[in-house]
């Protein structure tokens, strides 16, 4: 019953390793065709279907400033240095303390943050960012381009041992020609650069605090809230940044984050008004709570998905037909319902329904005859033994495994379950000691986020051992093409290949849910699971 405490990140963190809620894709694609055009604020045409506009009660009321809000989160933040943490719970806090060069709005559109505008050179290799003027760190010093260069160099310096360093692999140089300008050149055309720079792990830190080694315990950012204190397992307090660069924001005077590991206790805290906001509710109660007037529960189609990662080096799984047979034998409706009740949507693809980049290719409706036929062709028609490795800390992966176990028995596959605790799971996954593991990804925005690091030969998240030169080429093409329609065609091919080859057997996509008291206004549940409180105010 202590599942959620297990992983430093708490519930949602793990499924993912959270590559960052990085990545909004630049929609519209205007700037690409026009060479060096300054891209300011708004972006054209929202084709990102997954991002629905959240409803807000009393949107017409003028926000009231002031007040303290208590926010329940699933786990303690682990290490408050944004460059050194990969835990979701850390970023639930830090999203409100730091800024990136660019940000993502609640529909995952790219917006200026510390850079007020940027331009791209004609050869599409050099990005020039102009910093916002008069932005102050919480220590009172003004932000300069040197801090941006320092922060990025710090992340990609191997001595820092940052888990975010891979984001900078395609980057060649990072320079500050003057105190308000940063230029970044990439080795090749790198379409997802801006969305990667919106990752919460690329936050801009002040050089002096990083060099003093104090960021792990006392974050100093440019964000809407200033870190006050952290009493582990008890609370973390932030207060209003009076000199925040966005006019009039934030509204709240203070936020107290309280880690409450047990989901049902967190829910009771919400129902008894002991907390004002909570990061999610137990999946089994979500529907009931949504109908209740006492608390507001909102969900939004997320950019997260759960899948089976297949060890493509092991027999008989190295035979594509066996992987396809497994996919045909699965009843995804049932898997999704058992795993997360109404919060999961069965899916044969990583990209959720309604998303601009999603391909409609979905051949695997449950068909036991077809599955049996494929197994016969592969020479394992009499069945075989298979081990599923879900992560114990993420109960939906265990439930998925249980559902799959029963379903695969129908075609004679004898499934045993090996649920592992997160740290052991990571180890076994990293060393390839599995037949099939079950996990998830969260916070994907650009199509590159969904596929490149997971499926390209020898990339860092490729734990399945899958290698396909044709796919590698397409993945590279997807990165270097800057036209949306052209890119979409590339990614449709990529999806088709992956759905046919099945290094990942996709199971379902998931909704993101948060809950709060009716007097909490201005909060938007985001598809990327980021928690941002700068627009929140209390109507009481």
């Amino acid at each position, binding site marked *: *019953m*202590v599942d959620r*405490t*297990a*992983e*430093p*990140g708490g519930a949602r*963190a*793990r499924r*993912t*390793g*959270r*590559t960052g809620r990085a990545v909004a894709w630049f929609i519209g694609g205007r700037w690409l065709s026009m060479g060096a055009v300054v891209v300011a604020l708004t972006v054209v045409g929202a084709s990102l279907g997954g991002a629905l506009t959240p409803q807000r009660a009393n949107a017409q009321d003028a926000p009231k400033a002031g007040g303290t809000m208590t926010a329940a989160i699933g786990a*303690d933040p*682990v*290490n408050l240095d944004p460059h*050194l943490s*990969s*835990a979701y719970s850390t970023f639930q806090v830090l999203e409100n303390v730091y800024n990136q060069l660019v940000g993502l709005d609640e529909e995952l559109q790219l917006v200026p943050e510390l850079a007020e505008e940027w331009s791209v050179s004609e050869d599409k290799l050099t990005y020039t960012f102009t910093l916002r003027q008069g932005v102050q760190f919480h220590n009172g010093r003004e932000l300069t381009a040197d801090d941006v260069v320092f922060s990025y160099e710090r992340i990609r310096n*191997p*001595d820092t*041992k940052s*888990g*975010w*360093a*891979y984001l900078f692999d395609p980057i060649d140089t990072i320079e500050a020609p003057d105190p308000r300008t940063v230029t970044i050149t990439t080795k090749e055309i790198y379409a997802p650069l801006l969305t990667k720079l919106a990752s919460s792990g690329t936050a801009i830190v002040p050089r002096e605090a990083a060099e003093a080694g104090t960021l*792990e*315990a006392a974050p100093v950012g440019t964000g809407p809230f200033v870190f006050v204190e952290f*009493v*582990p*397992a*008890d609370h973390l307090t932030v207060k209003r940044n009076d000199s925040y660069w966005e006019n009039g924001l934030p509204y709240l005077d203070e936020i107290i984050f*309280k*880690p*409450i*590991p*047990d989901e*049902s*206790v967190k829910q*009771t*805290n919400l*129902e*008894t008004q*002991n907390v004002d906001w909570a990061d999610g509710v137990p999946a089994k109660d979500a529907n009931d709570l949504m109908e209740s007037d006492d608390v507001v529960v909102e969900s939004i189609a997320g950019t997260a998905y759960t899948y089976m990662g297949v060890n493509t080096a092991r027999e008989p799984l190295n035979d594509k037909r066996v992987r396809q047979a497994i996919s045909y034998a699965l009843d995804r409706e049932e898997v999704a319902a058992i795993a997360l009740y109404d919060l999961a949507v069965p899916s044969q693809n990583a990209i959720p329904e309604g998303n601009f980049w999603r391909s409609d290719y979905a051949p695997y409706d449950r068909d036991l005859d077809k599955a049996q036929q494929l197994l016969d062709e592969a020479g394992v028609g009499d069945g075989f033994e298979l081990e599923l490795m879900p992560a114990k*800390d993420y109960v939906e992966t265990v439930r998925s495994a249980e559902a799959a176990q029963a379903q695969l028995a129908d075609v004679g596959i004898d499934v045993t379950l090996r649920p592992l*605790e*997160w*740290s*052991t799971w*990571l*180890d*076994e996954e*990293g060393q390839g000691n599995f037949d099939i593991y079950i996990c998830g990804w969260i916070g994907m925005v650009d199509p590159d986020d969904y596929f490149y690091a997971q499926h390209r030969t020898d990339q*860092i*998240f490729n734990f399945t051992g899958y290698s396909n030169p044709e796919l590698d080429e397409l993945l590279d093409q997807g990165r270097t093409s800057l036209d949306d329609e052209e890119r979409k065609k590339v990614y449709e091919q990529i999806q088709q290949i992956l759905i046919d080859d099945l290094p990942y057997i996709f199971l379902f996509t998931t909704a993101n849910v948060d809950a709060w008291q009716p007097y909490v206004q201005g909060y938007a549940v985001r598809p990327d699971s980021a928690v941002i409180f700068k627009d929140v105010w209390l109507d009481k």
Partner: protein
Amino acid sequence: MLSFILRRVLLAVPVCLGISILVFLLIHLVPGDPARVMLGLQANEQTVAKIHEELGLDRPLPVQYLDWIWHLLRGDLGESYLTGEPVARAVLGRMPATLTLTVAAFVASLLIAIPIGIISGTRPYSRADYGAMVFAQLGVAIPEFWLGIMLILIFSLYLGWVPPSGYVSLMDDPVSWLKHLVLPAVTVGVVNAAVLSRFLRSSILEVMHQDYIRTARAKGLIEQRVITLHALRNALIPTVTVIGLQFAFMLGGVVVVEVIFAWPGVGRLALDAIYRRDYPMVQGAVLAVALTFVLINLIVDVLYAYLDPRIKF
């Protein structure tokens, strides 16, 4: 007496050393790698190796152990792998919450167990006795995590008497402190009370048949005084042994309860550290609990002398 205490303290040294070796071996031998937990899914081999080297995890286990002990002897418990926080500070910071909870649970268990034990013991096979023993059976059988959740639902969600979880320091707000303390203390206390009340019952039953009770009654003492002055005090002697063990047992029991009630104690610290393979933190936390255990047993032994004048050290 003093030499007895000194002897016991010296005896505790090899015990703690043994514990330290066990803890060290167990946490290092379970699968899982702190470097991978730190990096999450974004781990790559070079970075993992680099972290191993930096933390000294690439050295042989005995070397790592001796290094840890060497630092320990100089009062240095090391730093958390994940947060860089000194282990000693983290453990000491969490100790008050755990001790508060354990002592409160202990008091709660005595408040429940002593009356029940006396009633059952003095009126065996009565309805009250049967009722009390049903309670005792249930108390032992009910898992703490379930009882904790039920108490939260009843007293917090439906009745609204106390907050569902959290911790407030006694210094900050005594009333709020008590409100936050009641449910977790009762949760841990009930299990303990169940064991104690059964023990006390049989022990009182036995004492009530002793000659000195008959003598006490014969000299005209009222029954209440017979029970409190003569029966209870004697019945408590064997019970105290159990109480001492139970207290230590409760230190283990609070882990689950600390998680449910979001209580910032050592148990939760150790549990989180185990999950994260934060070796120095696990070692420090377990060692602290072990030391407390040893200390409590020492106190129990000293209490014997007070309760039973026949015992001299």
